[in-house]
């Protein structure tokens, strides 16, 4: 029987923990099949241009080098995702659309030889004028996508005509907010290993979504589904960065392995990874917020621009989430949100924890802070007046039905601020030139796919008695460090009433696990975890019925021993697999055409307060206190959940204060960990993380998503705190000391327009 310390709600040790800390876990770079070659990628050195020719140095010894170009692609030369616009390799005669784009591949027996071969390929390119700013993209003198460079446009409207509504407001606050690109900086760089067995292609690697890679490789290789097998190796972090790009690397490895007739491994160097793979979308959001004198929010007009980079990748879905969150968790009767993602010649921007919501959250929470100042109201009181309650209607017309924790999370933060700050925190001295301020943010994050996404996806999960008699969870969801394996094991063990160690979670592989949908969108625990729970219950009742069938008396203790029953079942009848498919709860409706309806099955809620000290000699910002309350529905494993929130908070503080990806002419200038920096333990404040549990009726044990929401709000809280300290509007991220200095010098006063 499951112990108390293992049940849902307790925090047993991670099931993958021991292997990781002892080094037994096998990451893709640890896999070394016999005869495996090293693959490298030949990349463009311009941001835009026509590839005229690929010249191989005739003096170089090519005898043991496999060389692959677009001409060697057996299927279609595209990375299939949403729009098929991105080539696996730019063909000769084709257009290079960003710096460090893949144009050819080499594989050789050693890293040294592969690197030398890569360097022995010369690209002949006719450069074209390029676009690196949102304004140039809008001007569309250079056309990268259609006539207007707009990848995608979304519009959400609610209520009256927004101009009329704004004109009728007592106060209108207006601002323009900009955020920069952010690198995921997972600890393990991307990498994939491909090997062909006969005419079946096996690809194993560091990835978040095995079925995305599967879908893409079928097309690139021109193979039927069953002849492409994608397996996840132990993965060292993803944060969205291993959502779309592994399809590209997987295709490269597969093409090289096909040409070489041997396994090929492509593992990126850090600089290559930072330079070429996707990052968070830079953004510019113009926001107008109209309020009544008493603080009621009456109208919001939001214009969202994202720099999508050179290819569509997942940009439109990221934009969609950004747009759907852009009015904030506030009751506003009249809303207009227009979002556009623009094509530029930056490497494609794509999925990153938060998925568009951090950018729009930054804008609306800065607006809320400014509105409070304009009205002379306490920022907490202003929020309390407007925050959603159960039964309120959102900008898309969704009526919130249960599990609304906007007020409880804010209340928890306010109560915590009454407590003394944690001992041992790092602070600046009290001195005249050290200025202090506080910023608050309240926000929400839709759990699961947007709109009809989950319904279309029909994610599946299986709980089985495997052929060897072990109880096994089979899901296409992956663990990249966030703890999904442990969470699934705990959910299944609780439903089956067995020890966590008596449940095995299968390694995600497309020939062994069903398509649970991608491991993204804060959906794994809530959606797939729910399927695991149902499937486990079904297995349990089958095994209990089996116990009766084989004649175990009702009081026989063996009847309660599910693992033993499972072994008996396997011996007598072979496998038992119960697969469950997601069905949205009744009454959920979404219209993709009008962008109206139930945007998400349910939302998570959060509030964050940040105290900063700003040194006015250096303009450095120190976070002295960070209180973060997050509603997760139910914490399946509180330690893992708290880790998710702590990590997300630090990543958000990094985005707010330190992390800056610098492009020059479309090339990433700081492509390594020495210069593309992220905060260290010294920068991280003592985090005061508070879990709020407002259960969701359709989540497993009440659970909702937790992965992304902590990323959304701290940025705005930090900027509002710095603004509070200095009295100057802080409307961009990251707030590097030189940026704070520039803004102070420019003396741009904040507040109402």
């Amino acid at each position, binding site marked *: 029987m499951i112990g108390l310390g293992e049940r849902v709600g307790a925090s047993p040790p991670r099931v993958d923990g021991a292997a990781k800390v002892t080094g037994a876990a096998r990451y893709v770079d640890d896999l070394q099949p016999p005869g495996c070659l090293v693959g490298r990628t030949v990349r463009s050195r311009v941001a835009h241009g026509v590839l005229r020719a690929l010249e191989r140095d005739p003096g170089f010894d090519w005898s043991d080098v496999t060389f692959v170009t677009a001409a060697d692609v057996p299927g279609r030369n595209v990375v299939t995702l949403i729009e098929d616009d991105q080539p696996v390799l730019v063909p000769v005669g084709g257009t290079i659309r960003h710096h460090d784009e893949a144009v050819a591949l080499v594989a050789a027996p050693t890293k040294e030889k592969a690197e030398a071969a890569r360097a022995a390929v010369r690209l002949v390119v006719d450069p074209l004028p390029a676009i690196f700013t949102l304004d140039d993209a809008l001007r569309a003198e250079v056309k990268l996508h259609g006539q207007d460079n707009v990848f995608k446009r979304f519009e959400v409207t609610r209520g009256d005509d927004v101009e009329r509504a704004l004109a009728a407001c007592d106060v209108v606050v207006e601002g323009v907010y900009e955020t920069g690109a952010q690198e995921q900086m997972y600890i393990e760089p991307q990498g994939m290993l491909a090997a062909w067995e006969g005419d079946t292609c096996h690809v194993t690697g560091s990835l978040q979504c095995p079925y995305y890679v599967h879908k893409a490789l079928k097309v690139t290789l021109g193979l039927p589904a069953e002849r492409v097998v994608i397996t996840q190796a132990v993965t060292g972090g993803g944060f969205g960065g291993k959502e779309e790009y592994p399809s590209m690397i997987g295709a490269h490895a597969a093409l090289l392995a096909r040409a070489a007739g041997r396994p090929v491994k492509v593992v990126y160097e850090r600089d290559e990874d930072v330079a070429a793979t996707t990052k968070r979308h830079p953004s510019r959001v113009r926001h107008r917020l109209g309020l009544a004198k008493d603080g009621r929010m009456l109208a919001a007009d939001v214009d969202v621009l994202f720099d999508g980079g050179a290819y569509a990748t997942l940009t439109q879905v990221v934009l969609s989430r950004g747009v759907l969150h852009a009015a904030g968790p506030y009751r506003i009767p009249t809303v207009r949100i227009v979002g556009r993602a623009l094509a530029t010649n930056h490497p494609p921007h794509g999925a990153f924890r938060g998925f568009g919501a951090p950018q729009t959250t930054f804008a609306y929470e800065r607006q809320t802070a400014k509105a409070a100042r304009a009205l002379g109201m306490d920022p907490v009181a202003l929020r309390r007046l407007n925050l959603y309650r159960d039964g309120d209607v959102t900008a898309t017309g969704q009526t919130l039905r249960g599990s609304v924790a906007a007020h409880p999370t804010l209340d928890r933060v306010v109560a915590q601020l009454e407590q003394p700050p944690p001992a041992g925190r790092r602070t*600046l001295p009290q001195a005249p030139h050290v200025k202090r301020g506080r910023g608050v943010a309240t926000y929400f994050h839709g759990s699961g796919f947007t709109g009809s996404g989950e319904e279309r996806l029909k994610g599946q999960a299986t709980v089985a008695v495997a052929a060897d008699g072990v109880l096994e969870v089979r899901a296409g969801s992956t663990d990249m460090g966030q703890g999904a394996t442990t969470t699934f094991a705990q959910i299944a063990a609780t439903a089956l009433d067995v020890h966590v160690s008596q449940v095995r979670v299968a390694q995600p592989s497309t020939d062994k696990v069903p398509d649970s949908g991608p491991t993204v969108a804060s959906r794994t625990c809530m959606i797939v975890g729910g399927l695991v729970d149902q499937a486990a219950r079904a297995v349990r009742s089958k095994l209990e019925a089996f116990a009766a069938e084989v004649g175990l008396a009702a009081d026989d203790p063996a009847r309660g021993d599910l693992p033993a029953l499972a072994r008996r079942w396997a011996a007598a009848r072979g496998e038992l697999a119960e697969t469950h498919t997601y069905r949205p709860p009744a009454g959920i409706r979404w219209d993709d055409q009008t962008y109206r309806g139930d945007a998400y099955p349910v939302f998570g809620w959060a509030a964050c307060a940040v105290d900063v000290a700003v040194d006015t000699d250096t303009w450095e910002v120190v976070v002295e206190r960070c209180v973060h309350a997050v509603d997760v529905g139910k914490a399946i494993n509180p330690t893992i959940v708290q880790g998710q929130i702590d990590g997300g908070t630090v990543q958000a503080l990094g985005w707010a204060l330190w992390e800056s990806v610098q492009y020059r002419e479309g090339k990433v200038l700081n492509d390594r960990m020495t210069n593309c920096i992220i905060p260290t333990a010294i920068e991280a404040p003592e985090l005061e993380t508070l879990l709020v549990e407002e259960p969701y009726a359709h989540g497993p044990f009440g659970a909702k998503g937790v992965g992304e929401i902590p990323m959304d709000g701290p940025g705005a809280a930090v900027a509002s705190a710095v603004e509070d300290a200095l009295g100057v509007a802080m409307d961009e991220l990251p707030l590097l000391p030189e940026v704070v200095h520039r803004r102070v010098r420019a003396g741009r006063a904040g507040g109402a327009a």
Partner: protein
Amino acid sequence: MMRCPPFRYLAPETAAEAARLVAAHGPGAALLAGGTDLLPRLKRGQAAPDLVVGLTRVAALRRARAGADGLELGAGVTLAATARHAALTPAHRALALAAGGAATPHVRNMGTLGGNLCADTRCGYYDQPRPWREAIGFCLKAPAGCAEPAAARAGEVAGTCWVAPGGRRCWAVASSDAAPALIALGAEVTVCSGEGSRRLAVAALHRDDGRAPLLLAPGEVLTTIHVPALGPAWRTTYWKLRRRGSFDFPVGAVALAVRLAASGEVLEARAALGGVASRPLVVETDALLGRRLDDEAVGAFAEAAVAPARPLDNTDYQPAWRRRALREAVAGALREVRGDPPEALGVLARAAARVLPRA
């Protein structure tokens, strides 16, 4: 690709033998201490020695000895050991802060004091993997990709500087934390070659040329760092500017040592700046002599001290910010040594170790 090219490795047991091996081999040889500076450079393709002479087996280099005239630190003493050395007195605070604030704990456990003094200059256009530099057509510091010390030393100029295009010199930045601190403390070094040894001031170890900053002849091995004993009237400190509290090299730093009379007048002073030129910049301190360190003196000195500094756009932060923040750091360091309490120093007090005190 971040891998070291192959090389032959020898590990002699004396410094003289190491010097002889390098001298005999010529420009293709390199000395290796902790390797935290050299090995990344090999991986970035900035050097490709065919012979590497390791100093790890030279036991004498790891010794430290304290005597009446001061401290003798072997060049192979690690930064971590330097920072917490028992013989350091409060007057050596600048060295403890500089060595203890460099890099990360791991790097300080490997990196040596000698290696720190001999470490290469740094530049955002240079400290990049070879393919990156290849893509911009390399630069003056290594026009053909690999550093060619012989050509550089001969003063030949080829290629472009991306920081100051059109110029004929390299502005890569001296990024050693220890060098300015040792200069302020009045330290000297002993270097040995096959023929013998010589002693020179740390201040005479570098020149303002980003390509070849070290004034050692090929085959000379730095063996000892002599830190003078400083009486209790000396007050020293080291303040360092960088983005984070760990990892990052200085983008501006000031080391300061003053001897104060009981009445508060400055009797002696030495100062050096790091991270703003291709060598540690020795600061003229005569203006302080005989003066009390009142606010006016502090402000005037800080202004004058940073005047020769020429931060350019080749490190983290913008040059204007670095100059301004460095001026504040110089002022803050002076206020610290005159005895202002930490509270009054504000944030820059932590620039010293760059780690916030825990409440």
